[in-house]
């Protein structure tokens, strides 16, 4: 298994499931060390029989990069659906040497990121039957098609391949059911749906809808958009819809912005005149010299009703236009709905949207357009531990015609510039931002920022050249201290904040990592926290994305879990390892916490890895199949609650 190019003939995942973790074998030898909580409050929990202060007592898999996945001993990692698998009943069987856009539009797309489990029936807590809603963020043409290279693909590709890529983007809705053998896809389901960048009609609502800056030759109304691209993470609304978030949409647009009215807007978002995709060669709308407003139609949060396969997805412009990592919802005590979102780039910001109206739990349909009215704010941190949400409202402060804003639509189309002007705090790549349903605090994954200079550090972003990332806790009023049930005031203007952990290897002083002091002995270190979710006890489950730095750190991306209160606070336990060169996305529990869905994205994405010679062939390990991004359903062998 040491030669990454060696052909593989046998699936290994099941063998690995049975592997005994070195750490679990050592566990008995480490008794006696006491654990003190790190950088936070919390009374020591009763340690029980174990001296390990963590409430998470699963075995940790080897912290080592392999071509295959590695799951905590005692758990099963079932590959549930792979790129190319049937979504619609009439989809053809996947043949990597005979692909077409028409087939791909009926098959599971590429690079699965966000995963939501939406129970059936709607509104229930059913944990054995539901809809798996999955973002298909982007494509790796060099791994999808023979004969391409990673750095040459944009020029090497033909139109048919580009359109297969477009069809492989978007979102998939798949009905799934738990059986005695594991989870199964319901192939003939009325709910199953593919949403693509190639052909799915969408509308846009809110202040930017119909604005002149969104009008194109194909859509003189500025209200009807084809497709969605680069949907990274997302969120689930209390009324049972799914929010998917357009992130690095800038990558898809070719043509030179120089001289265009939108040049400054586009450059601020990274559209500089060269595209990472070939699409603009074949589809005029991705060439800004020919269709100069098309990029203004992307970078939004899109709402999808997975329970109605005929529903038209809606881009909600009120939530702003930037590189949305996610859009996570929580209902405030007063009934207003709050949506948190990070802007995934070095030195970008953290946003919060608060609806004007209130959530109606008794009439789900009444919430249909709740996201169309409300206030978007951006976070300004202070080193004294406070945080203010600064509203981005036309006419307030600097957001006036004097600065080029003529309306709220302008503020939303150029959200980043508006946030610059009000004085938001630049952060180390804000990715997932999620509210903990148990303690009410909001957790921010700050993935990394290797470009922060020593003179730019502050208490919120305390490391220069931050290669490993960190996690912040935002504390709405009502969530300080760990006593009693918090009533988190998510709509308040001012929060407090704390550092939960600084990632990196605690045994390497130069990393500057900070965790629970027992991490090296009883837990495991992580790098590049990206997405997260919570179990029913409010513990934090973190997934990581180191990118190409994986080869330098020597550790795989995967799933880590830690307590956020008590004696085990900030002591990460390693739970699942991705196969080589993959990032881990989409952690989503079923309501009973007996299944954890995770998304293995871009397995084999290395500079030299190709369709013919990939660095892994996970999950098929067949010579006729390239690696395939796939969603994995993790369950305990005894059927118990994951994490206990």
């Amino acid at each position, binding site marked *: 298994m040491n030669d990454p190019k060696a052909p593989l003939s046998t699936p290994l995942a099941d063998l690995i499931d049975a592997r005994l973790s070195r750490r679990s074998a050592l566990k008995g030898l480490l008794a006696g060390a006491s654990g003190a909580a790190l950088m936070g409050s919390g009374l020591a929990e009763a340690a029980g029989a174990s001296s390990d202060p963590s409430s998470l007592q699963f075995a940790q898999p080897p912290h080592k990069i392999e071509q295959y996945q590695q799951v905590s001993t005692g758990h099963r990692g079932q590959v549930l659906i792979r790129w190319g698998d049937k979504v619609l009943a009439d989809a053809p069987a996947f043949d990597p040497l005979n692909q077409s856009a028409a087939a791909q539009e009926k098959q599971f797309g590429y690079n699965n990121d966000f995963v939501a489990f939406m129970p059936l029936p709607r509104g229930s807590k059913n944990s054995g039957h539901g809809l798996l809603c999955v973002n298909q963020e982007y494509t790796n043409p060099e791994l999808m098609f023979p004969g391409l290279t990673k*750095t040459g693909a944009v020029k090497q590709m033909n139109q048919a391949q580009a359109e297969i890529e477009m069809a492989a983007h978007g979102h998939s809705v798949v009905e799934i059911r738990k059986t005695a053998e594991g989870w199964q896809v319901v192939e003939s389901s009325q709910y199953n749906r593919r949403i693509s960048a190639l052909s799915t009609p969408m509308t846009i609502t809110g202040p930017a809808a119909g604005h002149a800056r969104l009008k194109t030759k194909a859509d003189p109304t500025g209200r009807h958009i084809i497709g969605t691209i680069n949907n990274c993470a997302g969120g689930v609304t209390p009324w049972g819809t799914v929010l998917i978030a357009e992130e690095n949409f800038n990558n898809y647009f070719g043509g030179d912005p120089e001289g265009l009215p939108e040049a400054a807007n586009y450059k601020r978002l*990274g559209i500089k005149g*060269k595209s990472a995709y070939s699409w603009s060669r074949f589809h005029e709308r991705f060439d800004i010299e020919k269709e100069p407003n098309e990029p203004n139609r992307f970078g939004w949060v899109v709402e999808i009703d997975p329970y109605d396969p005929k529903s038209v997805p809606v881009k909600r412009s009120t939530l702003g236009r930037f590189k949305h990592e996610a859009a996570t919802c929580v209902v405030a005590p007063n009934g207003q709905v709050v949506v948190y979102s990070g802007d995934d780039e070095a030195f970008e910001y953290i946003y919060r949207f608060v609806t004007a109206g209130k959530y109606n739990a008794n009439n789900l349909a009444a919430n249909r357009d709740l996201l169309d009215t409300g206030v978007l704010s951006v976070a300004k941190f202070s080193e004294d531990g406070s945080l203010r949400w600064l509203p981005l409202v036309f006419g307030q402060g600097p957001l006036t015609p004097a600065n080029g804003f003529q309306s709220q639509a302008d503020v939303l189309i150029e959200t980043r510039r508006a946030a610059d002007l009000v004085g938001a705090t630049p952060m180390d790549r804000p990715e997932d931002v999620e509210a903990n349903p148990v303690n009410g605090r909001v957790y921010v994954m700050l993935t990394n920022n290797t470009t922060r200079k020593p003179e730019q550090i502050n208490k919120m972003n305390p490391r220069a050249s931050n290669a490993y990332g960190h996690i912040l806790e935002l504390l709405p009023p009502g969530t300080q201290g760990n006593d009693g049930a918090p009533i988190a005031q998510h709509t308040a203007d001012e929060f407090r904040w704390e550092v939960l952990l600084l990632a990196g290897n605690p045994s390497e002083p130069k990393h500057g990592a900070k965790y629970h002091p027992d991490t090296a002995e009883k837990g495991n270190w992580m790098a590049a926290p990206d997405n997260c979710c919570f179990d029913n006890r409010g513990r934090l489950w973190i997934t990581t994305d180191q990118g*190409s730095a994986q080869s330098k750190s020597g550790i795989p991306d995967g799933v880590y879990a830690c307590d956020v209160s008590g004696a085990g606070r900030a002591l990460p336990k390693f739970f699942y390892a991705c196969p080589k060169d993959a990032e881990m996305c989409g952690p989503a529990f079923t309501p009973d916490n007996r299944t954890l869905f995770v998304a293995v994205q871009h397995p084999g994405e290395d*500079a030299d890895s190709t369709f013919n010679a990939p660095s892994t062939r996970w999950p098929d390990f067949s010579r006729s199949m390239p690696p395939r991004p796939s969603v994995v359903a993790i369950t305990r062998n005894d059927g118990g609650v994951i994490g206990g």
Partner: protein
Amino acid sequence: MSSTPVRANNPTPPFARRKNGKLELWVCSRCGHVYDGNAGEPLTSTPPFTPFETLPASWLCPHCAAEKRYFFF
């Protein structure tokens, strides 16, 4: 960045250039970040008119930390 990239105020071949004579734009094949040597890269303290080819081998993509070998034009 520990080392300072070579500054080339008047870049000449073999540096890749665009049709308009300006330095070529290089794209990260991992994350799509575009390096514009004409404008330089404040995030990595790279001054204007720095050809991609002259960046030190230790230079990393400011967005995803990919190495130079991931870039193309």
